């Protein structure tokens, strides 16, 4: 392609659009479905236990330490499927591009999506591209949907959790949110924090193998670890109690949070899964997670309780108890 920037014609349905799709997307995502450039991917699934999810991606900046919007768009959907104990298989990707968006950036993003899809073992089989006028979207918005096949007989749900069940997480929390925060104008922070953005399908299967009676899993994204815990027990007949000392944290994330007055437990993640397993499967699950490259710092961080139903307690390093509640919105840096 000779163009250096996206123009309205690239969304016009004509030869310019075809050229864009072929040279930027199709040749990177290449597989038997997308190569045909047909209207729909025709898929034969080996099971009727299908998991289906969708997600939108609008992150700014488009390229951040540890990832980019493309990698994120694959991981986000893959991880939703993985949390549902499903093997992710097929992804569709819809792009809204702003007139004037740099083609080289689009190429980088597409390459990243292709590489991430390969790592995750998924195929991008359908897509769509639209171009909007300058000012109508912030460079690029991506929407992905995904199909997976459920590997467990039962559907993962918080209602399966019982008092005494162990709660595990696969590593340090809060990195993604702080990696993005550190890039914000008005904060001028230099940091070594990297987004933890990663596809968790393989790790999930390792957990399933070691703990076949896993009760529930959820990937911790916006709202952080604390929000997943709160959502899991909201309205349920069990509570959750976690030990602050056991929650893995990277020191640079902690330092950035202390400086800006933020709580890492509420900071976003893009490569963390919270798994609730029966107590007698906890050790095996932990060993399996630590044996996987995305779970080296996995930890058992707490357990479900019979008391304080519907509430999440954190036992601080000093032995006192504080409650974790859902926050109303995004955390803001503060000076007070």
């Amino acid at each position, binding site marked *: 392609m000779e163009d250096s920037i996206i123009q309205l014609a690239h969304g016009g349905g004509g030869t310019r659009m075809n050229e864009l799709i072929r040279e930027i997307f199709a040749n990177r995502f290449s597989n038997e479905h997308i190569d045909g450039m047909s209207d729909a991917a025709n898929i034969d699934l080996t099971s009727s236990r299908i998991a289906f999810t969708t997600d939108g991606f609008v992150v700014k900046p488009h390229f951040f330490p540890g990832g980019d919007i493309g990698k994120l768009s694959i991981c986000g959907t893959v991880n939703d499927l993985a949390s549902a104990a499903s093997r992710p298989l097929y992804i569709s990707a819809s792009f809204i591009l702003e007139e004037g968006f740099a083609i080289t950036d689009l190429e980088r993003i597409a390459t990243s999506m292709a590489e991430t899809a390969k790592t995750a073992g998924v195929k991008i089989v359908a897509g769509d591209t639209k171009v909007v006028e300058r000012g109508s979207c912030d460079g690029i918005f991506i929407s992905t949907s995904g199909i997976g096949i459920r590997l467990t007989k039962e559907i993962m749900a918080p209602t399966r959790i019982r008092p005494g069940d162990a709660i595990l997480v696969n590593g340090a929390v809060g990195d993604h949110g702080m990696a993005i925060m*550190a890039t914000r104008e008005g904060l*001028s*922070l*230099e*940091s*070594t*924090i990297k987004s933890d953005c990663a596809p968790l399908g393989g790790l999930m299967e390792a957990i399933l193998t070691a703990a076949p009676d896993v009760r529930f899993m959820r990937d911790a994204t916006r709202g952080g670890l604390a929000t997943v815990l709160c959502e899991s027990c909201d309205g349920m007949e069990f509570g959750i109690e976690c030990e602050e000392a056991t929650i893995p944290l*990277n*020191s*640079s994330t*902690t*330092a*950035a949070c*202390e*400086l800006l*007055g933020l709580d890492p437990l509420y900071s976003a993640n893009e490569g963390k899964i919270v798994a609730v397993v029966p107590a007698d499967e906890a050790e095996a699950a932990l060993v399996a997670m630590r044996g996987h490259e995305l779970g080296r710092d996995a930890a058992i961080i707490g357990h479900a309780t019979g008391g304080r139903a519907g509430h999440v307690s954190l036992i601080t390093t000093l032995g006192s108890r504080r409650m974790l509640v859902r926050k109303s919105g995004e955390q803001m840096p*503060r*000076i*007070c």
Partner: protein
Amino acid sequence: MCLAIPMQIEAIDGEMGTVEATGIKREVSLSFIDDPSVGDYVLIHAGFAIQKIDEHQANETIELLNQMAQRAREMKS
């Protein structure tokens, strides 16, 4: 109203300095600090160093806390 954290001065350039703490760095104003030196720990609030940490006093405080804890352990046993 007082969120300030200790960070270490890594470099000084006139009234500005670069401070660091376990993987994060920021340019801050050192204009409130008398004779800042590379290696000093300063309290950072809203992009300014508001006070130098007195390491001698800090060591004394920790020492006192350690002694108290030690006495408490001895009394228990």
